[in-house]
């Protein structure tokens, strides 16, 4: 098995996807495509150079170029749109929420819009209030969109392939702080089906359900807590729509203790939904109150110590896990 950096696996997936299917187009800035402000961003340019007719840079018109991608998807293409920072997706909200999500349903199943929206979410360090948002909870409240949150090199590659192959509109939500993370990626890595959670770490005492970069953070915390004798199981849903609730519940039944870690703001965030579902279906399995670790309900501040204070840090994750043990 190859060890590979996350961003390399992502680039490899992008190249394989555009090579394999003529109907794939990338609508994206050439200089930074899919890698945001990371130092590797120029690497996307290699792909753009090799597929000049299928990589196109739009004006700063998110509403129109997302709508364009949706319309193109309705007409047989598989466009992948890079919105860069997730906050810019709000510019395209009418097209994503009102058009893409509803197209199949409103038409009674006649029309499909197999478009992929690519976003970089979360606290990236000094992004402040307008460049640090995590819109996955808002999107989850809008039926009709698949939502993907990769957290490892293998997942980013396998899930990206599934996203582009999917016949549904898919929001692919990545995190720039994952890019340097290393992991196994097999040469002929297969697509990873949506709706299959992965137990990223087996454990007996507490179930931690985490998404995106919070998976890596929770894994680090789990190692720490192992030294305290707390055996943490980390469950990564990988896609929240569809959600593999069965795997989550199986873990909850085993441990009876739950912490949900997610980078959305707390209220009506992803963690709220997962906690609510467990509260409804797993009430009698719980040995202790569940805990949520999420971004505190304030706009994201710029200054590092303030950002840190509201963030789902390792310290806050550890504290929540310990609390469930009492």
């Amino acid at each position: 098995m190859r060890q590979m950096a996350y961003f390399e696996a992502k680039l490899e997936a992008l190249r394989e996807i555009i090579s394999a299917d003529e109907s794939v187009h990338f609508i994206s800035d050439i200089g930074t495509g899919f890698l945001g402000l990371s130092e590797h961003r120029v690497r996307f340019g290699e792909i753009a150079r090799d597929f000049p007719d299928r990589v196109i840079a739009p004006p700063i018109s998110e509403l129109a170029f997302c709508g364009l991608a949706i319309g193109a998807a309705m007409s047989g293409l598989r466009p992948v749109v890079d919105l860069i920072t997730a906050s810019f997706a709000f510019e395209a909200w009418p097209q994503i929420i009102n058009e893409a999500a509803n197209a199949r349903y409103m038409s009674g199943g006649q029309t499909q819009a197999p478009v992929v929206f690519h976003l970089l979410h979360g606290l990236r360090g000094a992004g402040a209030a307008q460049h640090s948002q995590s819109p996955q909870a808002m999107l989850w409240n809008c039926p009709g969109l698949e939502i993907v949150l990769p957290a490892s090199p293998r997942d980013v590659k396998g899930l990206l392939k599934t996203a582009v192959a999917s016949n549904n509109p898919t929001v692919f939500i990545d995190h720039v702080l994952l890019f340097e993370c290393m992991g196994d990626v097999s040469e002929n890595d297969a697509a990873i089906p949506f709706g299959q959670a992965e137990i990223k770490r087996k454990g007996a005492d507490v179930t931690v359900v985490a998404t995106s970069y919070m998976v890596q953070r929770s894994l680090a915390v789990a190692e720490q807590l192992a030294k305290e004798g707390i055996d943490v199981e980390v469950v990564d849903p990988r896609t929240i729509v569809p959600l593999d609730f069965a795997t989550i519940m199986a873990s909850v039944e085993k441990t009876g203790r739950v912490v949900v870690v997610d980078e959305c703001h707390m209220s009506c965030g992803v963690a709220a939904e997962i906690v609510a579902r467990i509260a409804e279906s797993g009430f009698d399995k719980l040995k202790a109150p569940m805990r949520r670790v999420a971004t505190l309900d304030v706009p994201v501040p710029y200054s590092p110590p303030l950002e840190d204070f509201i963030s789902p840090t390792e310290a806050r994750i550890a504290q929540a896990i310990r609390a469930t043990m009492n």
Partner: protein
Amino acid sequence: MLLIRHFEEALVALHEQGHFSGHYHVYIGQEATGVPALADLAPDDALFATHRNHGHLLARGADPGRLFAEILGRRDGYNKGKGGTFHIAAAGLGFYHTTGIVGGNIPLATGAAYAAKTRGTGALSVCLFGDGAMEEGAAPEAFNIASLWKLPVLFLCENNGKYGANKAVGAAQSSTMAAYPLTELPGLYKIPAVQIDGTDVGAVFNAVSEATGRIRRGEGPQFIEAQSVRWPGSEGNWPVLPVATNVNLAWDASPVPESKRDWYRSSDPVLIFIRELVAAGVATREQIAEVEKSVKAEISQAVQFALASPFPEPAEALRDVFA
């Protein structure tokens, strides 16, 4: 055109009878735009309509029975009752997605054109929208991209506000727009744009043929503003018929209540066309009356079809979210 008119009038009756309850919009007064505009398209061209879509669907050959059924929320509707009046889609006719969001279809149609161009299908895309959509930022954003990328899209703006709200500035807008005439905005983005009389069948047909010809020759997007005078039945939020149309109104508008008679006398595109046909000797009054009779029969059959169609099973609500 007569089919559209009688369809919409029957729809108003169905609404008044309580067969459906939501907000809806009719195409009365714009028939002379939709019919000739869509007459000459190719089977694989894509069309993106709005809340005021019934006429477009019919002009493209949609089955009136299934249209009524959709608007009545019935199982045999084009969208199985899931879309309703604002969202009638008929993929077989190229209507993939009809939006109720003003301006929402302009980027979508531009995208279908992007697909047609990059796939090399030779198809084009037609975006049908009202003058109000020009006030949404989606319009200039999409015009810009369509122009830069030379996409095969026809922007057909139906300005049903001639002598409308903005009369004061000598313009023809249904609402507030500083940039007039409306052709200037696409023009600014280097999209050839013309203003035509949307109640003149020949003018519409010619303008659209010319535009689609240019598009198919690879000259990029084209814009047409088709002007019409707002039908006085749409003054309130719900349509109200001033009169039941019959072809005789073309020669004698006296059955129309006086306050609304003017429109039927001089701005009704259906009656204008009838007078033209007769004047040109293409048809006699009697022949046209015959056509109307058969149209009315077709509509009444279509209404019967829709009323006989059952409501969908409730659990149908859970299907078609995802592939």
